[in-house]
């Protein structure tokens, strides 16, 4: 599998991965704010967010209709829709695309659910791999506490209840997340994840993230073109309007 740079896309894709509660979403949000402020063409995309597929996914989850196979396929459909309609055109247009979760989320979760690794990887093989993947590695207990403190009611699939690991959703969630973490760690080398210690303070992590991004990607190439100077005639009109306004005030 090739990166977007290796596939000669003018744009670059940066992905963050990690367990729920690892703080990755906060970090990519802060990265986005920084890139925007720098005048970079940037687009942010979230896992499981395609409008078209959403109603099927939420129905499947609510009614607990999903099996490991259909869970995997419906997320692949969602990803393909975002990939073909948003990510590829933006990357062709030279954007920096930021993804909160990418195909590795599917690799880790679906395999934990029992799908064959080769099958899952094959299904996602139409996608290029990110130019930079940051894996936010927090102690399992830290991630679990963050989630379990803030959101006491766990959803069925989120807790991995379909795997029948335990009748207690909290216990099931802990076992499930632990297994997903193992899957992620096993992929680290193969997909060149950069591991970020997510036990550190948010600001400290962000300094590392920004440094990493500016070292790896020549950001000045991705700046928005500065707005063209207005032709003289329009400038005049604008001044006139301003003058009129001033007059209005006086009146």
């Amino acid at each position, binding site marked *: 599998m090739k990166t977007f740079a290796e596939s000669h896309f003018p744009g670059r894709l940066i992905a963050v991965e990690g367990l729920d509660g690892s703080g990755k979403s906060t970090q990519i949000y802060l990265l986005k704010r920084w890139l925007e402020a720098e005048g970079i063409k940037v687009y942010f995309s979230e896992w499981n967010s395609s409008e*078209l*597929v959403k*109603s*099927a996914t939420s*129905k*499947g989850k609510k009614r607990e*209709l*999903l*099996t*490991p*196979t*259909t869970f995997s*396929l*419906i997320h*692949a*459909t969602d990803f*393909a*829709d975002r*990939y*073909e*309609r948003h990510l590829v055109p933006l990357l062709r247009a030279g954007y920096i695309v930021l993804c909160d979760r990418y195909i590795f989320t599917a690799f880790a979760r679906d395999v934990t*659910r*029992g*799908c*064959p690794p*080769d*099958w899952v990887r*094959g*299904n996602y*093989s*139409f996608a290029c791999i990110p130019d930079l993947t940051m894996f936010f590695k927090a102690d399992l207990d830290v991630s679990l506490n963050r989630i379990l403190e803030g959101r006491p009611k766990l959803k069925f699939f989120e807790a991995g209840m379909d795997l029948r690991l335990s009748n207690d959703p909290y216990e099931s969630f802990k076992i499930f997340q632990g297994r997903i973490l193992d899957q992620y760690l096993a992929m680290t080398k193969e997909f060149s994840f950069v591991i970020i210690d997510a036990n550190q303070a948010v600001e400290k992590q962000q300094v590392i993230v920004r440094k990493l991004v500016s070292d790896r990607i020549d950001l000045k190439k991705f700046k928005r073109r500065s707005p063209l100077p207005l032709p003289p005639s329009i400038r005049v009109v604008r001044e006139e309007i301003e003058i009129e306004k001033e007059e209005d005030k006086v009146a």
Partner: protein
Amino acid sequence: MNKPRRFYGHGIPRVNSEDLRGTLIVVEGADGSGRSTQIAELVKWLETSGRATVQVGLKRSTLVSEELERAQEGNVLSRTTLALFYATDFADQLENLILPALKSGFIVLADRYIYTLMARDMVRGMNEVWLKNLYGIAPEPDAVFYLTVEPQELVQRNLAKTATLDYWESGMDLGFSRDMFDSFLKYQTAMGEAFRELQKSYHFEIIDANRSIASVTKELHKKIGALLEQD
């Protein structure tokens, strides 16, 4: 069955193919090939002889059929997305209908199967290796009959039936031609070629359906009768 059941590829997690002791019969063919008519005939024939049947088709899943319909109406899905959406629909029916019925020893009659889905995707430029991996979840049927009809004859049959040509069965999304009649012929020709390509790997039986309904039925009865006697 005289041969053990297998999945084409990786199969479905925690499903043992040997437990699928029923019979899976697939009828493939374009709209107008007489597919549905033949399946209705087969159901009648099998049930009269005291055998339990279950019928499945495409785009009938509880999970995604409505969403798939809506997305198609807007024609907004790209080819990979459409391929995966159809695969989701297929997998949902596979796990909720086909596999339980086969486990219970039913005869499952599939009005189209993975081959139509693969052929449609191939015509739209999807990679055959990718498709084979994706549909490795499917169990190998006991028999697959592909009803072939010349595109010129298909046009006549479709127009005689509804006086219109279906947008998707004419491959209008592919931009072969703005003329629906032309596009239908080109698309059905391309589908026929994709089926012949798939035949190399999947070895289904090609049935000439340019004939009368009754003579096709007779041939199917003969072949399926022989298959069931092997039990």
